[in-house]
């Protein structure tokens, strides 16, 4: 396998697997936030802030994966 084919495969895997994990994590965070808001609607503002922090932390890793994929993309 030459380098460019490996780079293409690596970029696809980095983005795909990163997005898979982050999708599961984001789904869990959002569903729990919806449950908590349904239980205690008056805490909605606080919960939204906490949710955005959690989503931001989760999104960091796939975004780093995307940056690595862009680096690999340049090698194709």
């Amino acid at each position, binding site marked *: 396998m030459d380098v460019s084919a490996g780079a293409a495969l690596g970029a696809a895997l980095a983005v795909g697997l990163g997005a898979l994990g982050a999708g599961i994590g984001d789904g869990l965070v959002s569903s729990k936030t919806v449950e908590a808001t349904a239980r205690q609607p008056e805490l909605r503002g606080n919960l939204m*802030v906490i949710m*955005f*922090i959690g989503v*931001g*932390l989760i*999104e*960091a890793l796939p*975004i*780093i994966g*995307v*940056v690595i994929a*862009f680096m690999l993309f340049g090698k194709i």
Partner: protein
Amino acid sequence: MKSIEQIHEELNIWHFPHHPWEVTIGNMHLAFNPKTLIMTWIVMIIIAVFWVWATRNMEMKKPSKKQLLAEEIFNFLRGLVNENLDPHKGASIMTLIFALFIFLLFSNLWGLVPTMMSPTADLNTTAGLAVMVFILVQILGFRYRGGGYVKYYLHPYPFFLPLTVVEELAKPVTLAFRLYGNIFAGEVLMAVLLSLIGLKTFYFLGFLPHVIWLAFSIFVGCIQAFIFTMLTIAYTARAVAEEEH
């Protein structure tokens, strides 16, 4: 279908040089990235002009719309700071938090103007900001807790020291990469969309993906500015908080 390099070449209508300016002073070798520098200056000018304009002729009785906007942003950030820190300590970092949020918000949104670039789409800018936050947190921890801050590193047991150091060093790295990755990926995806969908399809709604992605980028820019600021507050709060036993 054009390659991404061609798209970048076509979008470079201001003729920014591709290579950094190299300067050597004595033994120090410095490289300046001209595009990032110029964009940062433009954003700084915009911020200065906007806030002078927004806070001119302030009134207590009948505030204007622009004054209300400025007050609303400041009150929002002050609420976040006061929730996490006690008001005395919070007041000392309030100006920094406000400046950080405004700079990040304006520079994230500036990259959405065609042919312009966000200063934060360069790893050097975000890494500089993250290192500044890291040093600030350490200094504030020592200032408010003195020798007790060392205990924060040896918290449950002294042999956790390597883990705590790695955890502490991971904070600026993730701060820098999160912001850079989000903004840079937004701009690269716009170039990729331009290369995949040519402007010839304009009359057949070929501009829709770009518009949708631009709208999403506005959201991402605001959220990332908020998260960077919020995490700065949270890290400071954790380093500064008194031990509760």
